């Protein structure tokens, strides 16, 4: 079985995420978003200012990634970022990790429960039958 071998792109977000910097950032990540099944991790540890335009850009990235069967995950959220994401009810839309490494690892580690159980079942020796 093929385990995920596609690259995970980790991008550090700028300190101030307003409409201008959000546009620039979106332009930077556009090529990755347009690839097949994009896997992106945004590191928000440096973010000290996040406004509605920045949140909108994050949602747009996620929307684009979902269209191509990929995903965008967030990591190392600063206090500012957490508070604004909670305030705008968008934190529930993203998978959020403590570190970028955890977020990147989660792309390869994730398997749907049904598939995981099937794999375990296949690997496990047959259980002894009750007499």
């Amino acid at each position, binding site marked *: 079985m093929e385990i995920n071998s596609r690259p995970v792109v980790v991008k550090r977000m700028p300190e101030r995420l307003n409409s201008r910097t959000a546009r620039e950032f979106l332009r930077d990540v556009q090529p990755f978003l347009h690839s097949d099944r994009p896997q992106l991790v945004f590191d928000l540890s440096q973010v000290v200012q996040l406004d*509605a335009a920045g949140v909108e850009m994050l949602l747009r990235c996620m929307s684009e990634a979902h269209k191509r069967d990929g995903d965008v995950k967030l990591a190392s959220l600063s206090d500012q970022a957490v508070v604004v994401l*909670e*305030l*705008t*009810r968008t934190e529930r*839309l993203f*998978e*959020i990790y403590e570190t970028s490494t955890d977020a990147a690892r989660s792309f390869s580690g994730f398997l749907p429960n049904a598939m995981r159980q099937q794999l375990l079942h296949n690997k496990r020796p047959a259980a002894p039958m009750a007499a």
Partner: protein
Amino acid sequence: MDIRGLLLVNSGNSREKDSPFLASGPLGTLQVAGKTALDRTAERLQKFGISPVAAVVETAWTQAATANAGPAGLNSVKVPPDRFWRAAENAFNDMAQNGAELVVLVRLGAYAEIDFERLVQFHLDRGSRVSQVSHQGQDLEVFCISASRRNDAASLFRSRLTRCRSECPRMEAGGYVNHLADAFDLRQFAVDILTRQTQTSPAGDEIKPGVWAVRPAMIEKGARVLAPAFVGASARVRTGAVITRCSSIEHHAQVDCGSVVENSSVLPYCYVGAGLDLAHSVAGMRQVANLRRGVTVEVPDRTLIDLVSATSGKTFLSSAAEFLTYLPRVAWQGMISGGKQPQPDLNAALRKTSPALGKAAGYETPACDTEAAHKFPNMVVVRSNGNQ
């Protein structure tokens, strides 16, 4: 017996140094459930027959301190910071000259519900010149001073209430005490007032059980205010907004359409944008103190959190425009929709993202469309950290 009250309000309270909302003055002068701690303390002194009550307020803080008229009989003196302690001493001397026998001195900071009758009795029984109140071993800046002992009073004022010239017995206070040192204390104070843990009550009228409002508060049709809650004078809760779990919306604050304010305090003149989820927080002065995370962040985006101007013509013009266009809007909505507007649903409101996010506002979590969501329609399905 002639007993008078003296209240002091100034900066320099060491407990308040980390407070994020100091731009508007000490937390004792911020309105909580419609009244400041200054007003509540003055009212309490008067209730115990301690009258008249004078307040010495540092100039830098007077705007917040005198935002409302305060209780009747509170004589407020405004002084610049460099003359504050001299003015406090003069106010004490004036009281002594005018026949006061005892002066009860309270410095805000902390809000304490002290049995002043017991304090006076304690002072007289001990025959002391100055008595102080303590709470759980910590000294409060509440004193009872014999007016004839001017030297002792002068020593106390000159040391900024840190040193007594003679022996100063402590009376342990048993009532409610809130140090009002940070945003957490401010929020706790609102919760305690609304849940009636304190002897003081919210300002205004109880419009339905547990919901207090001060006229002319504006709660629009379709907004939900769930008890216990408080809506201050000229505050506005717009349609689709939900105010719940001991939240207080102070005077002139605005909660825009579809926002949920849960277990939070919205400070005076604060605007909370449309479709937001303000939970476990204190919002005001373009800042949000998230109490669950213990952080205070500045929110520069004015579509999210803003400051409503009390005096600008802009407020007047927008109100006038809204008034003039109200009837045409209602008529137009009636022609278009034809039916009754549905009641806002809390779960639906929570699922939506903020309209402040523009085009992305309509993006809903895929988790909401799962089989579980259809099976349990009243359950809000969310994705949180990791794969939980």
